């Protein structure tokens, strides 16, 4: 029994790390630009395809493919901010509806280019690590490791660089940040670009585990949603707490009850949190 619990906790932490990568970009876009980005999951999908193209078609080594994916995603995100989201800066609801349209466009463009069939991604590593009775597949451990490194790098960027400080200032108060010289026309595209780049990198990282198809964006989007609602829209520490919590809840519920029960429990939790504390666990009260 205790072994099962320990195994579930390990799996939960792995899941939580992945959810966090999705959720941070999502919450950053909301914090900086007040955009609820329904197209966030499609960038996960695009990241997976970019990594696939890099590794399979161009024969690049995986780390290089991942770095290129991140760079391209930043550019794409900045472009999308300029074309789609910029006109809706003052209007949260219209921006959100526009992102629904963007999600449809991106998903079906991928469908036309790559076809509906899932494509397999070559495994990077195989085998498992054993810790006593506990089993961690090496592929998952690798994903976890890379994910943690990227998240740490992002943390350092946010907390200890000029641009990171500017982004955090924007999350706190746009007008005051602008008065203090934060340049919105650079920070907005950068904010969305970085956010979707995190999603794209998560997609690239996940591709070897789950395969690649135009429809893979839906689940990560849902998870990002849940994490961000639980943690509080726009709150990065809240997202961190909620992501790990969600990973653990899912993993434990699916080991001890069933996988579909895990989904229902998390959605019910989302509804309860929204009703009792709309600003989320660590969000600022504004709803």
């Amino acid at each position, binding site marked *: 029994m205790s072994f099962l619990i320990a195994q579930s906790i390990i799996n939960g932490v792995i899941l939580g790390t992945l959810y966090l990568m999705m959720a941070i970009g999502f919450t950053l876009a909301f914090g900086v630009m007040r955009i*609820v980005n329904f197209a966030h999951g499609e960038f996960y999908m695009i990241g997976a395809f970019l990594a696939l193209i890099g590794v399979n078609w161009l024969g690049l080594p995986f780390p290089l493919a991942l770095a290129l994916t991140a760079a391209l995603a930043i550019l794409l995100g900045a472009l999308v901010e300029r074309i789609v989201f910029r006109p*809706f800066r003052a209007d*949260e609801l219209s921006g959100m509806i*526009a992102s629904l*349209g963007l999600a449809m466009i991106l998903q079906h463009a991928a*469908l036309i280019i790559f076809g509906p069939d899932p494509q397999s991604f070559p495994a990077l590593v195989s085998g498992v690590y054993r810790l006593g009775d506990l089993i961690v597949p090496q592929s998952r451990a690798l994903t976890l490791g890379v994910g943690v490194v990227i998240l740490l790098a992002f943390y350092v960027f946010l907390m200890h660089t000029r641009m990171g400080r500017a982004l955090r200032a924007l999350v706190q108060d746009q007008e005051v940040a602008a008065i203090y010289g934060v340049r919105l026309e650079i920070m907005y595209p950068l904010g969305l670009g970085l956010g979707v780049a995190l999603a794209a990198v998560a997609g690239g990282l996940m591709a070897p585990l789950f395969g690649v198809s135009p429809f893979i964006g839906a689940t990560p989007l849902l998870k990002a949603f849940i994490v961000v609602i639980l943690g509080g829209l726009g709150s990065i520490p809240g997202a961190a707490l909620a992501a790990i919590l969600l990973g653990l809840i899912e993993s434990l519920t699916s080991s001890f009850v069933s996988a579909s029960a895990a989904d*229902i429990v998390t*959605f019910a939790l989302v509804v309860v949190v*929204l*009703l009792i504390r709309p600003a989320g666990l660590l969000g600022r009260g504004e709803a």
Partner: protein
Amino acid sequence: MSTSVSAPPMASAFGGWLFVALLATLAAVPWFTGSVFHFHIGIMVCLAGMATGGLAVIAWVGQLSLAHAAFVGIGAYTSVLLVTRLDLPFLVGLPAAAVVAGAVAYIIGAPLLRLRGVYFVLITFALNELFRLVMLEFPGISGGSSGIAGVPKIQLFGITLAAQWQVYIFTLICLAVVMALLWLIRNGQLGRRFAAVEENPALAESSGIPTARTQSLAFVIGCAIAGATGSIMAHYVGFVSPETFAFQLSVSYVIMLVTGGRLALWGPLVGAVFLTPLPEFLRGAVEYQHIIYGVILIAVLRFLPQGLAGLPEQIARLRRDQR
């Protein structure tokens, strides 16, 4: 965003008749071509128009629901279960669908409607997913992922609507009833209350309008219309499954509403008429259909914030400005 600015009365009366004439002509198209397929599209336009009309009522108090498909689903399942399990006639199932959907909306509306803006959208999104997951969890009721097939056709007073044109006439009547209801609400005291709540809830509350009850009423009416639509849809298509009422259906209603005009009376109808047949005109390019939907949605949001229904007004204003 308010729409209460209206065009000059003369122009609007003439434009109104022109619009009605255009709609009547469009509605008659299937009889000219005589094609079963065109009747089918006509029926789908009517159903989409009804459901989107329900969504519009909710939008009039300033809330955008992404759970609309779930309420269509609640109506569909209510009616299907009553007709297939209890052998009740469709004429019992249809109102029951509206009542059950409305009752559910009433119960969950009170806590839900405290949330505004994006938070309301988020919670309704979560609820739509919850509905789908819970229904999948109870295959005894919902038929699980394979759904319930062979739902009996619509029956009115012992007459089975077997032919497409019969169903089409029935759905046209239902659509007319829904639009008449919307018109009555819009032009009555209730509509003004809705508009006041949409525009400025705090001000509305302080001028003696019970905002919470007003919003709840709009939500109940909108969801009841969705429920009735679900009942007709289920008996026409002959099949229901939890997946039918997934998030994507909610999104398509939102797209129709926004494209037609979020706050206009005719918005939902214009959106349904414009977007439902669109895939059929794109036969050769089915895979581009959703891309075109997405582009239209973003373009309308950007350039026609009042939707297609607001287009004449916008043109009129342009002309006035030029003079």
